[in-house]
């Protein structure tokens, strides 16, 4: 590939990776939970607090102006990052979870009634299930699910037409599954929904930092993501929605900044995006997120995706060398993670034993309990990669897993 990024130089941008854990070189394979942060993002945060900190939209002094410019500049940067037509369609949230709850409360409360159907998939994160369950309880709407085919972790697309009956009002699904690594055909799914007048929400938590994401190309109505999985800080996320939908939605929280005028008995709402941003927001978060977006684009998200896929394919093939190891998710075309069950060793024990060898994995149900029940497994270990990970680290993981198996079979 021309202009292949110098991945080993890029790795040096992440100060946290340069350390030993339990006396062993840290191998961080829990990127699907949260990514590490490059120096540029850490610096943006401290620069903001050292030089520019003030409240936004309220003061007219110099610092307030700088803070406001930083905050609103981040909104414009975000619009460009996902190719949103307008920056007023970018709402800052605490993360993916809050974005989904906002849509469920505001759009859902105003648009759903008893008997309407919310279509989800069996591979959704709890944060894209529970808010809809709460909404269903409030409105009498019902949930329906697109099935996952089995351990290979694909959506059963043959069901789509029969499931998308006229009672379906919303289809919410993830672009990349955090447990299976499946990359869903978001564009195709949205096109089908749109043709039937179904509103769509794309959970881009696992895709946003790993591949180019273009809301106009995908053709969705809402898209949500978290900053912390894409090199940004925790506590900041984004909801994008089509302007005409956001305009008609009622606010979901009241307070400062979201009003244009307040009377003792009623108020008028501020314009977009402020209508949905009540109170003093996280200001340093968007500013650091801006730095993260610049950082990712300097590398190139298409290159990151290609590299992710290489790492995941390599890990998948190497894991398959272990006899009887069970993997989840598609054999090819997966994003940068692999979930697996090591024979005879429970995922928790794998994670504890790996940790003592410096390897950070995740074990559990990955906030996908219904899916795990369906796959008849109560927890898996998951290795999730980012561009700073290396093939050598994957080789080391395979060695560690062999050591763990051996350790666990002693005395038997």
């Amino acid at each position, binding site marked *: 590939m021309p202009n292949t990024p110098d991945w080993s130089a890029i790795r040096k941008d992440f100060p946290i990776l340069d350390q030993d854990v339990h006396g062993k070189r840290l191998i961080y394979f829990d990127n699907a939970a949260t990514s590490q942060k490059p120096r540029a993002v850490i610096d943006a945060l401290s620069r903001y607090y050292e030089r520019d900190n003030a409240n936004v939209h309220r003061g007219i002094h110099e610092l307030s102006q700088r803070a406001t410019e930083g905050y609103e500049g981040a909104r414009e940067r975000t619009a460009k990052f996902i190719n949103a037509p307008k920056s007023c369609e970018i709402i800052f949230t605490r993360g993916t979870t809050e974005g989904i709850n906002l849509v469920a409360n505001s759009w859902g409360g105003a648009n759903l009634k008893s008997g309407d159907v919310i279509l989800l998939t069996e591979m959704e994160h709890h944060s894209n299930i529970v808010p809809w369950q709460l909404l269903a309880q409030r409105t009498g709407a019902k949930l329906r699910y697109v099935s996952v085919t089995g351990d290979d972790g694909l959506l059963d697309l043959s069901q789509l037409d029969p499931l998308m009956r006229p009672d379906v009002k919303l289809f919410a699904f993830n672009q990349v599954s955090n447990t299976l690594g499946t990359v869903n055909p978001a564009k195709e799914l949205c096109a089908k929904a749109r043709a039937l007048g179904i509103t769509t929400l794309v959970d881009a938590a696992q895709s946003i930092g790993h591949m180019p994401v273009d809301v106009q190309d995908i053709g969705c109505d809402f898209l949500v993501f978290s900053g912390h999985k894409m090199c940004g800080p925790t506590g900041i996320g984004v909801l994008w929605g089509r302007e005409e939908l956001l305009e008609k939605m009622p606010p979901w929280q009241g307070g400062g900044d979201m009003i244009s005028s307040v009377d003792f008995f009623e108020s008028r709402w501020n314009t977009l995006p402020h209508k949905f941003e009540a109170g003093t927001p996280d200001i340093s978060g968007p500013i650091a997120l801006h730095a993260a977006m610049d950082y990712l684009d300097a590398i190139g998200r298409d290159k990151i995706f290609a590299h992710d896929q290489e790492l995941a394919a390599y890990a998948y093939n190497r894991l398959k060398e272990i006899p009887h190891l069970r993997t989840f998710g598609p054999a090819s075309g997966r994003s940068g993670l692999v979930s697996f069950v090591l024979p005879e060793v*429970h995922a*928790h024990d794998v994670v*504890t034993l790996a940790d003592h060898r410096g390897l950070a994995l995740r074990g*559990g149900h990955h906030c996908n309990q219904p899916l795990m029940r369906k796959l008849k497994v*109560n*927890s898996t270990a998951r290795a999730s990669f980012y561009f700073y990970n290396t093939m050598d680290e994957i080789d080391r993981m395979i060695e560690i897993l062999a050591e763990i198996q051996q350790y*666990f079979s002693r*005395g038997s």
Partner: protein
Amino acid sequence: MDLDELYKEVVLDHCRRPRNFGEMPDADVHVHGDNPSCGDEITLHVKFGANRDLGEVMFTGNGCSLCMASASMMTQKIKNKPRANAESLWTSLHDMLTAREEPKELDDKLGDLQVLIGVRKFPMRVKCATLPWQALKQALEEKNSA
């Protein structure tokens, strides 16, 4: 090394060959316990004897080695024993795992359960080892109200 204290051979043995593992359709109570954060789940099946003491005890489920070993050893220690015995075992085990100071000497009545002392150094894993005991506590309470 700490890990060897956590994964003693007794633990691995109970995990590989859990004792009193299996269904008990005619149990007086079936109590389900799970760790929502990690997916460990076990069900305890208990028959009560006279004076609400414990009779047969079995368990089913799926969990990590610590959870399975703790459940397996627990059933051995409590079945066909007075309920007061089960309650005081639970108190001793709980103290052993969570008391701020590492206990100077371990309660003899814990017997094999003493091997779980290694869990102290792994605070994230304490709930794995105590899950079966939470279920037991619930089983005893249910019997109380019955």
